[in-house]
């Protein structure tokens, strides 16, 4: 345990929603472009990709033919001009249905493209100083760099591509991708700061970097392709839904195609235009029109969160996660522990401990050190030596303590209890039973004990408290209600770990965990058929990140971790994993809710059309909506069918409001709201439209 460890310099501070993310998407002109794109998508080569809407499109062309020649497929009853008018209206509504579906997809794609453009704005071609094998430096365009090339980047220059620092220490401005204005320190050989991202700028000193991604293959490039939809492949959930929609469409196609002879047999002949209307009303056009928009919008939401997902599958997997494996430090607790109490030993007073602790911390700029100074000041402790003449002793992993060499030759130290005991013994001092009791007391409270001494005398123990991030307990409660189990991993001892676990409200914890334990935990959970998500940033996290179903690597982490993970958080905020689970669930819930609504709608449309067109067959009593005529019933059902698509676009793009409920509760709620609501809403809407349209 490092008594004076500090927060990772790469983690942006402040509330996430208050941070400025530079890649802001420009949504100006989105809808005009989407209208244009909706017409472009009428191209049969594009339309064929959406089976449900392709059937509607073909139906539109057939109704267009019977608008021009009403008796093209056989004699029609009544006036030809009236029939032509009805067929024309049906054609227009069907055409609008296809256009609205195309528009929904185009809006989602447009938002994705705008997001991609914003991401792309962080990339720009730049001249890189490539180091040749013979040591010479050659200036080359960044697009010509290949994986394995070495480049030198000096202060003021942009880093040409994703890479790993081989040599040098420099401050890098990563605001282009993280929105965090404070530069971060980059140096080789460390887990948290050795990787650099293309498009960020070196603000001081220089770095020797090995390029780790070919042009167009970096993380941001992959995300651009995904949000633009260029490389969007269907997720397993989308594939299953596509099959379901195709099966439903096939069933209704066969039913409607074989309906004409039956209609003739029951003396209620129907025209081709009415049969096509019936087919369109029965097939699930609402979800067929919105399906791809929901998927694209899901990816878009992840990108807006400043997370790079390498596939839509990963985003969707977030929604199915059963177990979250979380590191304690930085994820559950704030990275920096704060001084909470002084515990005097050997007969000293609180004030004396405060004075020595203050003297030992005057040169300590870490958040822990600052918090010790603040606590000491509460005890009115003051520095009674000239700081300029004193010398600060920095913390090191070897000594495990820090402190001050006083001008009068005295030495004040604070650090791990064992280390301070050793320091005192080396100066002929003694440890005491008091100290061990204070150490145990702090450990039992879940804190970190720091002993304080001056020369050969131990004064007391500082209780460094691990601060659980505010609001986490509620988030874990929410996750529990959704059936997601949380496991905390920490290198702390069992007593400390259990206290933090209890305070944070996690379901389970593993104390004194090694990186190898992570992969063991994941495997154990997966062997029970569970899906596991975890975060990591170090090279030793890479196997676990690859093993997890959702691996979220920190952007500040090593290249190995980023390559093993299927998501990278540009903000390097491990807590975001919890938000990603929410986004994934929201995506799945939205798709499920709109599918339920679409299929429930078909029932109402069925009751609107069938009883009126087959009234002659004696089923007029089923016309429970008392619609005026077969013509108005068909038009009302089709108008509703067309209008519901644009009406649901905002919901498809924004997602159904997320509620932390279990799968059963969600299912019941969705069936009630979108199932029963999906039956009732069209009944009311179709009746209203029937009353409004002037066709008898």
């Amino acid at each position: 345990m490092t008594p004076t460890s500090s927060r990772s310099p790469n983690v942006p501070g402040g509330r996430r929603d208050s941070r400025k993310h530079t890649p802001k998407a420009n949504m100006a002109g989105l809808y005009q472009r989407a209208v244009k794109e909706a017409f472009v998508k009428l191209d049969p080569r594009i339309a064929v990709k959406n089976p449900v809407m392709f059937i509607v499109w073909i139906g539109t062309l057939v109704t267009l033919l019977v608008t021009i020649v009403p008796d093209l497929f056989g004699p029609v009853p009544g006036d030809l001009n009236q029939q032509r008018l009805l067929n024309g209206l049906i054609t227009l509504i069907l055409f609008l249905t296809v256009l609205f579906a195309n528009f929904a997809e185009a809006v989602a794609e447009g938002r994705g493209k705008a997001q991609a453009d914003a991401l792309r704005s962080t990339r720009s071609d730049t001249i890189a100083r490539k180091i040749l094998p013979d040591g010479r430096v050659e200036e080359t365009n960044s697009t010509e760099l290949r994986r394995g090339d070495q480049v030198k980047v000096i202060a003021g220059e942009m880093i040409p591509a994703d890479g790993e620092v081989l040599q040098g220490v420099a401050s890098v401005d990563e605001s282009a991708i993280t929105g965090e204005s404070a530069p971060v320190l980059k140096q080789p050989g460390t887990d948290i700061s050795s990787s650099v991202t293309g498009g960020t700028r070196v603000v001081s000193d220089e770095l020797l970097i090995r390029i780790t991604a070919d042009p167009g293959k970096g993380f941001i490039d992959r995300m651009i392709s995904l949000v633009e939809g260029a490389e969007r492949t269907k997720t397993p959930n989308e594939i299953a839904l596509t099959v379901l929609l195709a099966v439903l469409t096939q069933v209704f196609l066969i039913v409607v195609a074989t309906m004409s002879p039956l209609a003739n047999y029951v003396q209620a002949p129907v025209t081709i235009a009415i049969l096509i209307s019936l087919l369109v009303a029965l097939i699930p056009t609402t979800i067929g029109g919105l399906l791809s928009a929901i998927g694209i919008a899901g990816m878009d939401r992840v990108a807006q969160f400043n997370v790079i997902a390498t596939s839509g599958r990963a985003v969707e997997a977030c929604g199915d996660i059963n177990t979250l494996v979380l590191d304690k430090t930085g994820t559950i607790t704030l990275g920096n522990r704060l001084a909470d109490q002084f515990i005097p030993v050997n007969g000293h007073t609180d004030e004396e401990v405060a004075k020595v602790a203050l003297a030992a911390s005057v040169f300590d700029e870490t958040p822990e050190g600052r918090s010790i100074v603040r606590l000491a000041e509460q005890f009115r402790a003051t520095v009674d030596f000239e700081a300029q003449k004193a010398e600060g002793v920095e913390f090191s992993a070897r000594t495990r303590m820090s402190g001050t060499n006083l001008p009068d030759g005295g030495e004040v130290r604070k650090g791990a209890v064992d280390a301070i005991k050793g320091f005192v013994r080396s100066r002929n001092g003694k440890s005491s039973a008091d100290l061990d009791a204070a150490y145990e007391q702090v450990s039992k409270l879940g804190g970190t004990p720091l002993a304080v001494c001056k020369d050969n005398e131990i004064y007391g123990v500082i209780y460094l408290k691990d601060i659980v991030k505010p609001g986490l307990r509620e988030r874990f409660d929410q996750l529990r209600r959704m059936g997601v189990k949380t496991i905390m991993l920490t290198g702390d001892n069992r007593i400390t770990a259990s206290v933090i676990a209890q305070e944070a409200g996690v379901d389970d914890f593993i104390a004194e965990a090694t990186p190898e334990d992570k992969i063991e935990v994941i495997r154990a959970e997966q062997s029970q058929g569970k899906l596991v998500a975890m975060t990591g940033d170090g090279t030793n996290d890479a196997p676990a990140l690859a093993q997890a179903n959702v691996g979220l690597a920190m952007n500040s982490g090593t290249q190995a971790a980023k390559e093993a993970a299927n998501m990278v958080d540009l903000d390097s905020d491990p807590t975001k994993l919890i938000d990603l689970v929410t986004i994934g669930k929201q995506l799945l819930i939205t798709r499920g809710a709109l599918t339920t609504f679409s299929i429930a709608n078909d029932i109402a449309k069925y009751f609107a059309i069938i009883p009126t067109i087959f009234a002659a067959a004696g089923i007029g009593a089923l016309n429970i909506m008392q619609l005026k005529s077969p013509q108005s019933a068909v038009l009302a059902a089709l108008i509703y069918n067309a209008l519901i698509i644009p009406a649901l676009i905002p919901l498809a793009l924004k997602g159904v409001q997320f509620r932390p409920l279990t799968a059963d509760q969600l299912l019941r709620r969705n069936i009630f709201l979108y199932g029963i609501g999906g039956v009732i809403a069209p009944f009311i809407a179709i009746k209203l439209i029937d009353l409004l349209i002037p066709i008898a």
Partner: protein
Amino acid sequence: MKTHSIFAIRHQRPIYLFLGLCFNLLVLAPAVYAATPEIYTPSQVAWLVLLGGVTLALSIYLFVVMFQPERF
């Protein structure tokens, strides 16, 4: 070689379509016309058979979607 095969497929489609239409006009439509009541004219029967063909094609298309959904 690959270019040649794509070229061939692209140019074979209209030929198949043309042959299908000829088959409809010369074989299917007369056969169906012979078996339908006299209220239908020969051209109406030809269009009906064509519509039946389109419906069959859509049905086959939907089966393809069912068995190879990742393509769509």
